[in-house]
């Protein structure tokens, strides 16, 4: 009896059952409504952009793993997230060849060189996005109006631009609410902003869907809710104060909150676990810092939008936050760093 060899493990012998690939998968689920909405509002173009971003991220991850003689880590789903996030931050008529390049840069420079998942100091998708912003500043600020007639069966010339060639913008281009405000002091209707009847990146337009996705993740404990809350609160409070000081110069807090990539960034990018602090208090500092930089860049900077830069800066600051803010260990006096 009982001839089988026993399985030996060290304690604890039970696990909560959450696993990293499961978290990653759920983040993908939480973003799917955004993908669907962006296809609904921007049509085939947005779909192609997102698919290309995902494909290039996954392919790059696979290729690099192979090249360096490791087994492929595609199955942990993190490359898929990077791809979707990258796709969601690009304009709907962004050329596919540039999108593909962005995916390669995201994974290669944003993740692989750092040692892969868990070591990437910066959000890979944002590294790719920042690269594209610097490389192709015109294409990445060429926006497209949403809910155009015929969007489901036509592909923009710009999207289909031949690799390495300059995209040609056909038809109308639209300004994002933020650039409209920055340059012409025109603010958009808050309801339009919240529900996504505006121009912008493929995934940033519908604040409501982003929040719903965030709530899903927060409830399933797969996202640190403190991060978006800290960022959004900071942006709201700061812009509210400024708005009170001079409501002609400074936009309303709700405009600040719902426009641009703030929601998407706060909910899906700043919350990237690898690049954010690990302690609850550290996370709040991180969120407040990002919110502050967003407001500074949007209000006083030369660019209409600063969420991407704010999060990358937050990522760079994270090691220091973790280093400086450590919880007091049980039974010890206040620890110094």
């Amino acid at each position, binding site marked *: 009896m009982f001839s089988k060899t026993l399985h030996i493990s060290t304690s604890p012998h039970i696990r909560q059952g959450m696993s990293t690939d499961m978290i990653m998968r759920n983040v993908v689920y939480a973003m799917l409504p955004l993908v669907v909405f962006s296809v609904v509002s921007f049509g085939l173009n947005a779909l192609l952009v997102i698919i290309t971003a995902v494909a290039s991220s996954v392919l790059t991850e696979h290729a690099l793993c192979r090249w360096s003689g490791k087994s492929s880590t595609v199955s942990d789903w993190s490359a898929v997230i990077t791809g979707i996030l990258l796709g969601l931050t690009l304009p709907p008529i962004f050329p596919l060849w540039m999108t593909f390049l962005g995916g390669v840069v995201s994974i290669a420079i944003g993740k692989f060189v750092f040692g892969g998942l868990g070591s990437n100091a910066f959000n890979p998708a944002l590294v790719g996005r920042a690269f594209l912003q610097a490389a192709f*500043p*015109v294409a990445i*600020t*060429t926006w497209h109006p949403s809910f155009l007639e015929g969007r489901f069966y036509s592909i923009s010339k710009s999207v289909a631009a031949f690799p390495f060639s300059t995209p040609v913008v056909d038809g109308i281009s639209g300004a994002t609410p933020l*650039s409209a405000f920055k*340059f*012409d002091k025109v603010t958009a209707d808050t309801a339009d902003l919240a529900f996504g009847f505006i121009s912008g990146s493929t995934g940033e337009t519908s604040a409501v869907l982003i929040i719903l996705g965030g709530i899903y993740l927060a409830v399933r404990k797969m996202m640190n809710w403190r991060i978006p809350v800290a960022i959004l609160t900071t942006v709201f409070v700061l812009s509210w104060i400024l708005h009170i000081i001079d409501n002609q110069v400074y936009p309303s807090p709700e405009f600040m909150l719902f426009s641009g990539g703030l929601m998407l960034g706060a909910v899906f990018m700043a919350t990237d676990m690898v690049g954010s602090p690990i302690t609850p208090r550290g996370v709040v500092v991180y969120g407040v810092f990002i919110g502050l930089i967003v407001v500074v860049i949007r209000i006083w900077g*030369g660019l209409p939008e600063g969420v991407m830069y704010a999060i990358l800066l937050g990522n760079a600051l994270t090691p220091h936050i973790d280093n400086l803010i450590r919880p007091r260990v049980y039974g010890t006096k206040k620890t110094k760093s």
Partner: protein
Amino acid sequence: MSANQILSTQPNPTEGSKKMLIAMVGIGVICALLIVLSYEGTKERIEILKAEALEKAVFKVVPGISKTRIFELTAEGTFVLSDGKDRSKTLVYAGYDDSDAFKGIAIEASGQGYADILRILYGYDPEEQTVVGFYVLESKETPGLGDKIEKDEDFLSNFKALTVALTEDLSKIQNPVVPVKSGLKKNPWEVDGITGATISSRAIGNIIGESSAKMIPLIYSQKETFISAANPNSK
């Protein structure tokens, strides 16, 4: 190690310091000689090249002239001849044609661009009361984006005839120069922006707007100073 070096590592103190002094002075003399020689040797050519470069710019913004004279703005708001070396002063370059007639004036202005301070030169024709030319002296604007302000034909055509007419009492510009969004220019005093280089192109509009509001009334009222300087006594 050679014997020489071993010796030099343990020198006799007094002899060592003496040797040190000689060496330093010797090297100092050689260096000074080389520097002064190269400075003197290139000085003339550099000055010529620099002057040429500046003239080229001034000629560009004030069409039809063949020589210029530099003036600087004093604290009292008057213009006096200058050698153009003091960079803290606001400089203007009066342009004259072959017959020494005062044709217009190039005004230096600067302001905040996208990446750093932008320094520009724009030409003003007091006769027509318009801006007649524009040139970027110094810019660190993003290549391929912000630097369109130097290349974009549509943008540059803004400054072929930009109205800066003064009010009746000559105290200020009737319609200050303002930047507008690309394609929305309706009046001759508006500067049409560049799509994709909004910030930089607006910055130019603002710099000219600000500078012209201050400088144009002053220049217009002192037209005589420039006209009379055409044939200065000093030369």
